[in-house]
């Protein structure tokens, strides 16, 4: 686990210096030259442009991740952003299991778990890729009052069937995690 650096403010929200995005992108291209990526959470056109320019095929599922019905082993990577943290806790584990089935054997998931609401920086909303190691986060939608704030142990438990490649804890309270589908579990 690492602690990430500064979080300068921008006009529409904050900028987050990602510890995992670059590694996520590198792994995608190690898996496939034309990798399939599932984009969850709030739709951001810039991300589609960015990933498309990198040769990715992008699937977008927006705000209804529970309706996912993709075939097994169909994605090299999942950009979950904060979609998991927005859903009720009891739905998160089965959802992550569902994502695991959709991932290829060496596939990766990048997810964000915002800190407590009311913090100084926006950490929940639309995640816009502005570079390999940089994200702009624009507030979007309402966080539920009872929405869970994930601690490290919760994240490790949630991704217990994955290899946690990196978990970064940002000053804003946001936790950023990159996990890979384990090759050796024998489960799927």
């Amino acid at each position, binding site marked *: 686990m690492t602690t990430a650096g500064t979080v300068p403010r921008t006009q*529409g929200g904050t900028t987050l210096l990602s510890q995992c995005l670059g590694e996520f992108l590198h792994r995608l291209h190690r898996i496939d030259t034309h990798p399939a990526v599932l984009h969850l959470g709030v*739709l*951001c*056109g*810039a*991300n*589609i*442009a*960015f*990933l*498309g*320019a*990198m*040769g990715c*095929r*992008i*699937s*977008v*599922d*927006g705000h*209804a991740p529970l309706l996912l019905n993709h075939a097994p082993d169909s994605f090299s990577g999942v950009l979950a952003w904060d979609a998991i943290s927005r859903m009720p806790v009891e739905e998160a584990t089965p959802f992550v299991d569902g994502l695991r089935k959709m991932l290829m054997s060496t596939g990766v998931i990048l997810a964000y778990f915002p800190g407590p609401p009311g913090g100084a920086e926006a950490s929940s909303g*639309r995640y*816009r*890729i*502005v*570079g*390999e190691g940089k994200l702009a986060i624009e507030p979007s939608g309402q966080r539920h009052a009872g929405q869970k704030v994930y601690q490290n142990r919760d994240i490790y438990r949630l991704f217990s069937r994955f290899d946690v490649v990196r978990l970064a804890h940002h000053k804003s309270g946001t936790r950023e995690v990159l996990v890979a589908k384990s090759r050796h579990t024998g489960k799927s």
Partner: protein
Amino acid sequence: MWEKKEADRDRFDPQASFRSEAPRTVAAPAFPTKTAHANIGQSLFIKGEVSGSEDLTVEGRVEGRIDLKDHNLTIGPNGRVHAEIHAKNITIVGEVTGNVLADEKVDLTDSGRLVGDIRAPRIAVSDGAQFKGSVDMVQSGTERSEKASASSHQKAVAMAGHPQNVQMAQAGKAAQ
């Protein structure tokens, strides 16, 4: 003398007609062909295949298939389309359910709603647009050759900085 005047009158003077006549004007054609544009009005419902060789705006409902290979299609704010679509440029302001194939560009505006897959060399998705489906940014032949000389990765990094409505050119289009 009289005979000389007759001879002068009969002599052909190529400049004479231009000097004496007022400037000519050419009447505009009744149906301008270059800007031909069809419209499916709000009260219309078409079920079947729509094809043609002019730009089209859909404000009504269409179910089936729309094929405007070399022309532009706009789904207006009131347009409701449940169809497979193929056009040169496709702008979605209203609602579309079905796969969308554009030879040049798909523009999903902030009020647009698309359930279906997009296949186009260039795609613009405005923030606020509703989209469920997949995106495959295929390249046209010229773009493919341009891309060979340019790093797409560097372009992506540069273009990702655009704040709202990000337009994407997979090859060297952005630089043109």
